């Protein structure tokens, strides 16, 4: 079922033109998003100007989760259908997701100090987000621990799939348990509880983060394809 895209050369041909499209989309959306963040979005009635941290914190956290789900789907496809391109996509996603998760933790910490009165607490939301960062780092470490990339992909795919259980825990931690972190504002039953003048900048920034993710993902997948070709060529030259 995935064989139509299995050929890395076809994938390269189809995805190369997307790179400049994503690059420009990221630059334009990021410029618009930053303009809205600092010039059109109002200060919050409770949090004042510190609410502007939300426009990087929330997209980072969303992308941290989104990348993990994408990585898990790719790893599962690689594991079940032995689709090597899916393995490469999972591998290429990990550092991007780790970067976003790291950013959401750091910006959240810098937001927590003035608002909550602390940089860090061990509540269910913050702790499960830290676990997500460790899952990314563990995935990357495990993959590099094998000399044979095939075995590395298999072992790390299992780790990613086990870690998927953390995703609903992160999302619903604020509903299931008492946490210091507030409940969801945007994706929740009954519609967002965030004023449109603040919701729009948030959505534009999130879109910018998404196109950035696709852009960097394509670059990294292309690099992984090149690396596997290099490996194949070197092996053939060695055996010739």
């Amino acid at each position: 079922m995935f064989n139509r895209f299995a050929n890395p050369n076809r994938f390269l041909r189809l995805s190369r033109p997307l790179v400049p499209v994503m690059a420009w989309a990221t630059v334009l959306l990021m410029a618009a998003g930053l303009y809205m963040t600092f010039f059109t979005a109002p200060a919050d009635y409770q949090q004042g100007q510190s609410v502007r941290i939300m426009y990087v914190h929330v997209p980072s956290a969303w992308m941290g989760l989104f990348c993990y789900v994408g990585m898990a789907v790719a790893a599962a496809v690689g594991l079940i259908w032995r689709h090597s391109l899916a393995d490469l996509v999972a591998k290429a996603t990990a550092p991007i997701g780790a970067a976003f998760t790291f950013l959401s933790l750091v910006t959240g910490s810098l937001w927590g100090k003035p608002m909550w009165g602390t940089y860090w607490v061990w509540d269910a939301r913050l702790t499960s987000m830290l676990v997500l960062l460790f899952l990314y780092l563990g995935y990357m470490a495990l993959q590099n621990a094998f000399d044979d990339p095939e075995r590395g992909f298999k072992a790390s795919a299992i780790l990613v799939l086990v870690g998927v259980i953390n995703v609903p825990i992160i999302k619903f931690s604020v509903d299931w348990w008492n946490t210091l972190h507030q409940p969801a504002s945007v994706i929740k039953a009954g519609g967002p509880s965030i004023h449109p003048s603040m919701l729009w900048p948030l959505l534009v920034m999130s879109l910018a983060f998404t196109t950035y993710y696709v852009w960097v993902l394509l670059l990294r997948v292309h690099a992984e394809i090149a690396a596997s070709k290099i490996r194949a060529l070197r092996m053939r030259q060695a055996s010739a």
Partner: protein
Amino acid sequence: MKRKHKRLTFVVIALLLLAGAAALVLTAFEENIVFFHSPTDVVTKHPGPDRRLRLGGLVEEGSVEKEAGSAMVRFRITDLANSVPVVYQGILPDLFREGQGVVAEGRLRDGVFQADGVLAKHDENYMPPEVADALKQSGKWDEMSETMKRQGHVTKDGAK
């Protein structure tokens, strides 16, 4: 069954088992995952003065008294069913105000919560100040703060 179908079935079954195990573990440790206890919990369970705990709820309207000349603050934390008096000496976070969610950390001594730390909790509502003022003027605010309380942590445990 083809090999890839076998692998698919295996992965799906393994994930289901894992989800079940995680749900069991999380239920078993619920008490430890909870970040704070509500005033109703504290009133009904009477934790001894040796136990450090976190008390969370709303700062009762009109209950905040600042002692002149010192950083001593007295207020009551309520979940709208029960309330507990709190004493605290130290710097309060910017979001600390009456009617807002807070989490105090400390010990309960003779019915008074001696806090050595106070954290502010904010709700999931974001809006510009003008909109908040307009809501207050049109009288929709009370309705909304009721919803906020319903959706927040406050009555969830109080109703238990």
